């Protein structure tokens, strides 16, 4: 196992200032401002097509911003400088790499020394339960395994900022619960700042410290609801159900 020093990510502070994103004439993100604190677990919910993916793509500078700025730890966000991992909404494992090499991918890009990289890969293989499949290739894996590869790859670099775009949307309930718990464990262990996008309100209430509700397009932040229920959370507990219903109402009434 690794020393405490190495396993602890710094946790990035994110400032979004007057973020505006247009595609041609289509205004998607409309002058959005908010902060995410170091080590915060923020869930983001919003209607289909409101621009959640667009927001993460803007945050990582895959898209150019139309206006506004995004700062990480006080400076303009730059994936070359800041330690970011992004789990995309679609499958993104590299078909030419084995499970093991896929998980190592980010570490290779960042030039992490071999020994340390291997330790991280081993740790992640164990966490997502893919040790037996380390030599397999993506086309031999089920949908849930592919998703776990992406998750392991994202975590292996010990990111300061972890972005997850409906990562569990395609999974069956049982596996979703398992991976939600794994995510919480990893987050508690690493101290990473997490932005977690989901359609699933129960999932948001189960995971987040804060739940950000977005409006329809042109998209603004409707509200941010704190979720102070202590972990481990019980989805059947009255306070959980109450908060879930509250968030549902906030989403329903525009």
């Amino acid at each position, binding site marked *: 196992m690794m020393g405490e020093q190495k396993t602890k990510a710094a946790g990035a502070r994110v400032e979004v200032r007057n973020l505006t994103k247009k595609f041609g004439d289509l205004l998607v993100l409309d002058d959005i401002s908010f902060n995410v604190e170091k080590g915060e677990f923020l869930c983001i919910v919003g209607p289909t097509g409101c621009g959640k993916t667009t927001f993460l*793509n803007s945050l*990582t*500078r*895959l898209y150019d911003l139309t206006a506004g700025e995004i700062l990480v730890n006080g400076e303009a966000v*730059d*994936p*070359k*400088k*800041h330690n*970011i*991992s*992004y789990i*995309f909404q*679609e*499958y*993104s494992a*590299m*078909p*030419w*790499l*084995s499970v093991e090499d896929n998980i190592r*991918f*980010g570490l*290779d*890009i*960042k030039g992490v020394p071999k020994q340390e990289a291997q330790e991280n890969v081993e740790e992640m293989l164990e966490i997502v339960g893919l040790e037996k499949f380390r030599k397999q*290739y*993506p*086309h*031999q894996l089920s949908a849930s395994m592919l998703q776990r590869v992406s998750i392991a*790859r994202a975590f292996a*670099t010990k990111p300061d900022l972890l*972005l997850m775009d409906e990562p569990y949307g395609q999974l069956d309930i049982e596996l979703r619960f398992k991976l939600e718990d794994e995510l919480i464990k990893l987050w508690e262990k690493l101290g990473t700042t997490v932005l977690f996008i989901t359609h699933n309100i129960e999932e948001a209430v189960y995971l987040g410290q804060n739940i950000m509700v977005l409006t329809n397009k042109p998209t603004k932040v409707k509200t941010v609801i704190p979720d102070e229920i202590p972990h481990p959370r019980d989805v059947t507990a009255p306070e959980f159900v109450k908060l879930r219903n509250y968030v549902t109402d906030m989403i329903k009434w525009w």
Partner: protein
Amino acid sequence: MQKKKSKYLWILSAVTVVFVLFIWWLVTDGLGIFTSNTLPSPIKIVQAFIKKLTDPNPDGATLGAHLLSSLKIVLSGYLLGVVIGIPMGIVMAWYEKADLMIRPVFDMIRTVPGIAWVPVMVVFCGIGFTSKAIVIFIGAVVANVINAYSGIKQTKQVHLWVGATFGASNWQLLTKIALPSAFPMIINGLKLSLGGAWTTIVAAELLASNRGIGYMIQQARGILRPDIIIVGMFVIGIVGSLLMLPISLLEKKVMKGGKW
């Protein structure tokens, strides 16, 4: 169960081969429907093959000398085409400026099929090695550029994005993502252009040559020696598939993960 089944399936193919050979023998030596001046029997073909290994008649060179001559031209033109074509396709796909610069010339060249270059090359360089090697080279460059280019262009955006969000440099995006993505297409180009090169050399030798398998066939046609023609055809087929072997091995080795 699965293993057992596939283990004996080759018998089916063997039966077909034996059957075809038998029919062939039957209509020639067996029943004498065809004389050996039109369709020689399989036995006569084997005899002609063995004879041609050492006998330079009637076309001035042994089978081995013809084959070597063809192979030299094909491999020089092909390998040069590969070594230049693949990097060129990659560079054109990755750097837009290179694309803009090279494309006009490339588009002009690629619309002319390989064999159509033969007459002009013969005028320039005669009927020897050089003219045919250049023709083969042009064909190989075109196929390898096109395939490497499309391979790189077909890289999935999300894969490039994974690299970009991990902070990959442009060079890392190319070498760690776009190139492996393009690999199946590059292999495809290697195969297509090798098949093309082999076809082109035979055709070119039929048209203008004084040596080579195509030349041997052409000479045999002139003096009505179908046995030598058929020997030549078999050699073309067998050598053609042997040439593919290293590429298939490379493909198997790198594409352990199945196709993508």
